[in-house]
Protein backbone atom coordinates (compact mmCIF):
# COMPACT_ATOMS: atom_id res chain seq x y z
CA UNK A 1 0.00 0.00 0.00
CA UNK A 2 1.07 3.58 -0.49
CA UNK A 3 0.61 6.56 1.82
CA UNK A 4 1.57 10.11 0.83
CA UNK A 5 0.65 12.94 3.11
CA UNK A 6 1.51 16.42 4.32
CA UNK A 7 0.74 16.69 8.03
CA UNK A 8 0.35 19.88 10.06
CA UNK A 9 1.46 18.25 13.30
CA UNK A 10 3.65 15.45 14.69
CA UNK A 11 4.46 12.59 12.31
CA UNK A 12 3.68 9.01 13.33
CA UNK A 13 6.26 6.42 12.27
CA UNK A 14 3.88 3.63 13.25
CA UNK A 15 1.30 4.95 10.79
CA UNK A 16 3.91 4.83 8.03
CA UNK A 17 4.92 1.29 9.03
CA UNK A 18 1.33 0.07 9.14
CA UNK A 19 0.79 1.47 5.65
CA UNK A 20 3.66 -0.52 4.12
CA UNK A 21 4.09 -3.71 6.16
CA UNK A 22 2.62 -7.05 5.21
CA UNK A 23 3.29 -10.77 5.67
CA UNK A 24 4.63 -11.24 2.14
CA UNK A 25 7.48 -8.73 2.47
CA UNK A 26 10.44 -9.45 4.72
CA UNK A 27 12.19 -6.09 4.83
CA UNK A 28 11.11 -2.65 6.00
CA UNK A 29 13.43 0.35 5.83
CA UNK A 30 12.62 3.77 7.24
CA UNK A 31 14.23 7.17 7.17
CA UNK A 32 13.32 9.98 9.53
CA UNK A 33 14.69 13.48 9.13
CA UNK A 34 14.57 15.30 12.44
CA UNK A 35 15.05 18.94 13.36
CA UNK A 36 18.61 19.50 14.52
CA UNK A 37 19.56 21.95 17.26
CA UNK A 38 22.31 23.56 15.21
CA UNK A 39 23.34 24.31 11.64
CA UNK A 40 26.84 25.31 10.61
CA UNK A 41 27.68 25.89 14.26
CA UNK A 42 24.71 28.20 14.90
CA UNK A 43 22.04 27.16 17.45
CA UNK A 44 18.65 26.53 15.86
CA UNK A 45 15.51 27.04 17.99
CA UNK A 46 12.99 25.40 15.67
CA UNK A 47 12.16 24.83 12.01
CA UNK A 48 9.19 26.09 9.98
CA UNK A 49 8.16 24.27 6.82
CA UNK A 50 6.01 25.72 4.06
CA UNK A 51 4.70 23.55 1.23
CA UNK A 52 2.99 24.04 -2.10
CA UNK A 53 0.66 21.33 -0.88
CA UNK A 54 -1.14 20.19 -4.03
CA UNK A 55 2.09 19.98 -6.04
CA UNK A 56 4.00 18.37 -3.15
CA UNK A 57 1.47 15.55 -2.92
CA UNK A 58 1.71 15.15 -6.71
CA UNK A 59 5.49 14.89 -6.29
CA UNK A 60 5.08 12.20 -3.63
CA UNK A 61 2.88 10.20 -6.01
CA UNK A 62 5.52 10.53 -8.72
CA UNK A 63 8.23 9.30 -6.33
CA UNK A 64 5.97 6.38 -5.47
CA UNK A 65 5.65 5.49 -9.15
CA UNK A 66 9.41 5.77 -9.64
CA UNK A 67 10.08 3.52 -6.64
CA UNK A 68 7.53 0.99 -7.90
CA UNK A 69 9.28 0.87 -11.26
CA UNK A 70 12.90 0.87 -10.08
CA UNK A 71 12.62 -1.29 -6.98
CA UNK A 72 9.57 -3.38 -7.82
CA UNK A 73 7.63 -2.51 -4.68
CA UNK A 74 4.47 -0.40 -4.33
CA UNK A 75 4.80 -0.25 -0.55
CA UNK A 76 6.04 3.29 0.09
CA UNK A 77 4.91 5.82 2.68
CA UNK A 78 5.95 9.48 2.64
CA UNK A 79 4.90 11.78 5.47
CA UNK A 80 6.11 15.38 5.59
CA UNK A 81 5.31 17.85 8.31
CA UNK A 82 4.37 21.48 7.64
CA UNK A 83 4.36 24.45 9.99
CA UNK A 84 6.51 24.50 13.11
CA UNK A 85 8.77 21.50 13.82
CA UNK A 86 10.34 21.57 17.30
CA UNK A 87 13.96 20.42 17.72
CA UNK A 88 14.27 16.62 17.86
CA UNK A 89 10.94 15.98 16.12
CA UNK A 90 10.62 14.52 12.63
CA UNK A 91 10.02 16.76 9.63
CA UNK A 92 9.89 13.84 7.19
CA UNK A 93 9.38 10.09 7.39
CA UNK A 94 9.88 7.59 4.59
CA UNK A 95 9.01 3.90 4.95
CA UNK A 96 9.46 1.19 2.33
CA UNK A 97 8.64 -2.49 2.51
CA UNK A 98 10.02 -4.98 0.01
CA UNK A 99 10.67 -8.71 -0.18
CA UNK A 100 14.39 -8.25 0.54
CA UNK A 101 16.60 -5.82 2.39
CA UNK A 102 18.64 -4.40 -0.46
CA UNK A 103 15.63 -3.10 -2.38
CA UNK A 104 14.02 -1.76 0.79
CA UNK A 105 17.10 0.19 1.84
CA UNK A 106 17.93 1.40 -1.67
CA UNK A 107 14.33 2.49 -2.30
CA UNK A 108 14.29 4.38 0.99
CA UNK A 109 17.50 6.24 0.07
CA UNK A 110 16.15 6.95 -3.41
CA UNK A 111 12.84 8.29 -2.11
CA UNK A 112 14.37 10.75 0.36
CA UNK A 113 16.88 11.94 -2.26
CA UNK A 114 14.09 12.56 -4.79
CA UNK A 115 11.91 14.26 -2.20
CA UNK A 116 14.70 16.68 -1.36
CA UNK A 117 15.35 17.38 -5.05
CA UNK A 118 11.80 17.77 -6.25
CA UNK A 119 9.15 18.32 -3.57
CA UNK A 120 8.04 21.97 -3.42
CA UNK A 121 8.64 22.38 0.30
CA UNK A 122 10.80 24.98 2.01
CA UNK A 123 12.52 25.02 5.38
CA UNK A 124 13.09 28.07 7.50
CA UNK A 125 15.56 27.90 10.37
CA UNK A 126 14.66 30.05 13.36
CA UNK A 127 17.52 31.34 15.52
CA UNK A 128 17.53 33.43 18.69
CA UNK A 129 18.13 36.55 16.60
CA UNK A 130 16.32 35.91 13.34
CA UNK A 131 15.32 33.35 10.76
CA UNK A 132 16.55 32.21 7.33
CA UNK A 133 14.79 30.40 4.49
CA UNK A 134 17.08 27.54 3.46
CA UNK A 135 17.47 26.93 -0.26
CA UNK A 136 18.65 23.66 -1.75
CA UNK A 137 20.91 23.25 -4.75
CA UNK A 138 19.26 24.32 -7.99
CA UNK A 139 18.56 20.78 -9.16
CA UNK A 140 15.14 19.96 -10.53
CA UNK A 141 13.59 17.58 -13.00
CA UNK A 142 13.27 18.81 -16.57
CA UNK A 143 9.97 20.69 -16.81
Amino acid at each position, binding site marked *: MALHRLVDGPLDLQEALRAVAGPDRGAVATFSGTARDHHAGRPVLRLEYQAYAA*MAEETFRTIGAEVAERFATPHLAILHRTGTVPIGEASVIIAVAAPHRREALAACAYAIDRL*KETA*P*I*WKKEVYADGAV*WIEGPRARPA*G
Partner: protein
Amino acid sequence: MKITVMLFARYREAAGRPALEVEAPEGATLQGIWEQVRTAVPALADERRPLFACDRAYARPERVVTGGEEIAAFPPVSGG
Protein backbone atom coordinates in the same frame (compact mmCIF):
# COMPACT_ATOMS: atom_id res chain seq x y z
CA MET B 1 -5.32 37.83 -19.84
CA LYS B 2 -5.18 37.84 -16.05
CA ILE B 3 -2.63 35.42 -14.58
CA THR B 4 -2.31 34.57 -10.90
CA VAL B 5 1.19 33.64 -9.77
CA MET B 6 1.50 31.73 -6.50
CA LEU B 7 4.58 32.57 -4.43
CA PHE B 8 6.33 30.50 -1.79
CA ALA B 9 8.93 30.75 0.95
CA ARG B 10 11.27 33.73 0.60
CA TYR B 11 9.33 35.10 -2.37
CA ARG B 12 6.07 35.03 -0.45
CA GLU B 13 7.69 36.78 2.51
CA ALA B 14 9.28 39.40 0.24
CA ALA B 15 6.00 40.09 -1.53
CA GLY B 16 3.98 40.06 1.66
CA ARG B 17 1.30 37.94 0.04
CA PRO B 18 0.82 34.33 -1.14
CA ALA B 19 -0.10 35.17 -4.74
CA LEU B 20 -0.05 38.04 -7.20
CA GLU B 21 -2.22 38.80 -10.20
CA VAL B 22 -0.69 40.33 -13.33
CA GLU B 23 -2.08 41.24 -16.75
CA ALA B 24 -0.19 39.31 -19.44
CA PRO B 25 -0.39 39.51 -23.25
CA GLU B 26 -1.42 36.49 -25.33
CA GLY B 27 1.57 34.22 -25.92
CA ALA B 28 3.31 35.30 -22.72
CA THR B 29 5.89 32.91 -21.30
CA LEU B 30 6.44 32.07 -17.64
CA GLN B 31 9.61 34.17 -17.67
CA GLY B 32 7.71 37.06 -19.28
CA ILE B 33 5.04 36.90 -16.61
CA TRP B 34 7.74 36.81 -13.97
CA GLU B 35 9.27 40.01 -15.32
CA GLN B 36 5.94 41.67 -14.64
CA VAL B 37 5.94 40.29 -11.11
CA ARG B 38 9.44 41.67 -10.55
CA THR B 39 8.33 45.08 -11.81
CA ALA B 40 5.24 45.04 -9.59
CA VAL B 41 7.12 43.90 -6.46
CA PRO B 42 10.39 45.77 -5.92
CA ALA B 43 11.41 43.30 -3.16
CA LEU B 44 11.58 40.60 -5.87
CA ALA B 45 13.55 42.70 -8.37
CA ASP B 46 16.76 40.70 -7.79
CA GLU B 47 15.08 37.33 -8.34
CA ARG B 48 15.81 36.75 -12.02
CA ARG B 49 15.65 32.94 -12.20
CA PRO B 50 12.92 31.42 -10.06
CA LEU B 51 11.74 27.86 -10.46
CA PHE B 52 8.34 27.65 -12.16
CA ALA B 53 5.48 25.21 -11.86
CA CYS B 54 2.58 25.02 -14.28
CA ASP B 55 -0.41 22.92 -13.21
CA ARG B 56 1.60 21.40 -10.34
CA ALA B 57 4.55 20.24 -12.44
CA TYR B 58 7.92 21.90 -12.97
CA ALA B 59 7.96 23.98 -16.18
CA ARG B 60 10.66 25.74 -18.18
CA PRO B 61 10.80 29.57 -18.24
CA GLU B 62 10.06 29.61 -21.98
CA ARG B 63 6.78 27.74 -21.53
CA VAL B 64 3.89 29.68 -23.09
CA VAL B 65 0.89 30.27 -20.84
CA THR B 66 -2.57 30.09 -22.38
CA GLY B 67 -4.55 31.19 -19.32
CA GLY B 68 -6.34 29.03 -16.79
CA GLU B 69 -3.21 27.17 -15.70
CA GLU B 70 -2.16 27.08 -12.04
CA ILE B 71 1.14 29.03 -12.06
CA ALA B 72 3.70 29.16 -9.25
CA ALA B 73 7.17 30.66 -8.84
CA PHE B 74 9.56 29.80 -6.04
CA PRO B 75 13.18 29.51 -4.92
CA PRO B 76 15.09 26.18 -4.86
CA VAL B 77 13.30 23.70 -2.63
CA SER B 78 14.63 22.61 0.77
CA GLY B 79 12.19 20.03 2.12
CA GLY B 80 13.12 16.86 3.96
